[in-house]
């Protein structure tokens, strides 16, 4: 099951660049939460702070508290363990090109020490079913390379890979921006189904997508979170003029 995320006074830097400033936010469990804002506003940095990927960049650092479920992820737990609990899907699908579909999905499991074939088979099948790809690939799981799939299928395979390690949270950084409308629609349907089991945070530039998939939406601007509210409120009657200007396209 998904868990809630509680962010308190989160600040992040790239060297001297103060990229995130005083972010306070409660992300509800088993809901989809969308983060919107112009390029460079800090939304991707924010999600990377939720699985401690931000600090892997040279010169980058973060302060503040991020609680995922009962754990303070900057104190109570190792980054590797965090990334098992908090899966991530990126803008462009990133299959391991030399691996089969099966091995692509099982990669994280093997890294986490799983070696029993039956267990692996079972989890790979379940993950591909959860990512709505199983029926399309089940006959060629071990024969076909992950890179031979279409862009939309590759993205769903990457979602299966993220789900295979049984995370509590799924971070999605523009997961459909490189996909055609049909593949995008499949990813959005998937988000709708997956939030029953996981807490989903999705960064998107596509505001209609945020409106379609998320119950909550946060608007970021210049490293700050300007507004966080129910998605229908944000898109029909936002409280802050800067949010209104951005979502109506009058920003800048």
């Amino acid at each position: 099951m998904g868990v809630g995320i509680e962010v308190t006074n989160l600040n992040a830097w790239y060297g001297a660049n103060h990229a995130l400033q005083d972010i306070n936010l409660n992300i509800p469990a088993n809901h989809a939460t969308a983060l919107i804002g112009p390029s460079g506003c800090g939304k991707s940095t924010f999600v990377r702070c939720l699985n401690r990927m931000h600090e892997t960049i040279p010169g980058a650092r973060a302060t503040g508290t991020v609680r995922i479920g009962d754990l303070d992820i900057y104190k109570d737990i190792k980054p590797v363990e965090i990334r098992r609990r908090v899966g991530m899907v990126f803008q462009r699908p990133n299959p391991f090109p030399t691996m089969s579909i099966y091995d692509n999905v099982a990669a994280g499991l093997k890294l986490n020490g799983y070696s029993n074939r039956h267990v692996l088979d079972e989890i790979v099948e379940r993950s591909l079913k959860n990512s709505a790809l199983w029926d399309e690939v089940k006959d060629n799981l071990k024969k076909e390379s992950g890179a031979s799939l279409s862009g939309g299928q590759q993205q769903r395979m990457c979602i299966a890979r993220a789900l295979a390690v049984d995370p509590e949270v799924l971070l999605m950084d523009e997961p459909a921006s490189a996909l055609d409308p049909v593949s995008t629609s499949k990813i959005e349907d998937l988000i709708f189904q997956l939030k029953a089991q996981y807490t989903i945070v999705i960064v998107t530039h596509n505001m209609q997508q945020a409106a379609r998939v998320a119950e909550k939406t946060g608007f970021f601007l210049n490293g700050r979170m300007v507004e966080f509210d129910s998605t229908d409120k944000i898109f029909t009657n936002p409280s802050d003029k800067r949010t209104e200007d951005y979502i109506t396209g009058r920003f800048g």
Partner: protein
Amino acid sequence: MTRIRFQQSLENLKEKLLVEAGLAEQAVQRAIEAYRKRDLSICELVSRGEIDINILEREIDQAALDLLAMEQPMAGDLRFILSVIKINAELERVGNAAKTISERVRHMERMAAAELPVNIPRMAELASEMVRMSLQAFIEADAEAARSILTMDDAVDAMNKAAFKALIKVMEEQSHLAPQALNALMISRALERVADHATNIAEDVIFWVLGDDVRHHKSVNLLQQQQDKGETSA
């Protein structure tokens, strides 16, 4: 400022709606003038004007539909376009009400003049004022001004109720005046509807400007109070 084309389209939509509003307002005034003067040529103008309103109604709906489909408006823009669609329908119905009045005048003109216990010009003045004020609130995006219109509707409702009572009495006691009284009653009812449309326009303005849905506030509040009472007693 960005989205110049979209912004221009919104301005065009507003302008078109204001043209329709002008025609609707004029239709009510003409219909009442026709009533006062028993002038069939003015009735004819009202009928012709209604066609213009209908044509504009279709054009406005189409333009609004295009903007919804092509521009995916959000927030204030989305509320504005929704309000325009709804106000558009209200104005078309104001035009219908004016036509109803002018048709009644055609019937009345064939009958002998009669003194009836109803002040149609006064009712018309109030209803027209409400239409004018609601459109002014729309032009100025003034939710407070729109709110002040909501209470005016009660006065027109009361006048219509009084007219109904008085005219029924005329029908009962002076049966030879029944056709005249019936026509007057239908005119009174049409004016009461004009005031209702003005009220709806004012509510649409409030929704556009503030995002607040104030429709049916009395009945909704009453239901809420009843539910609250039920919960407390349970």
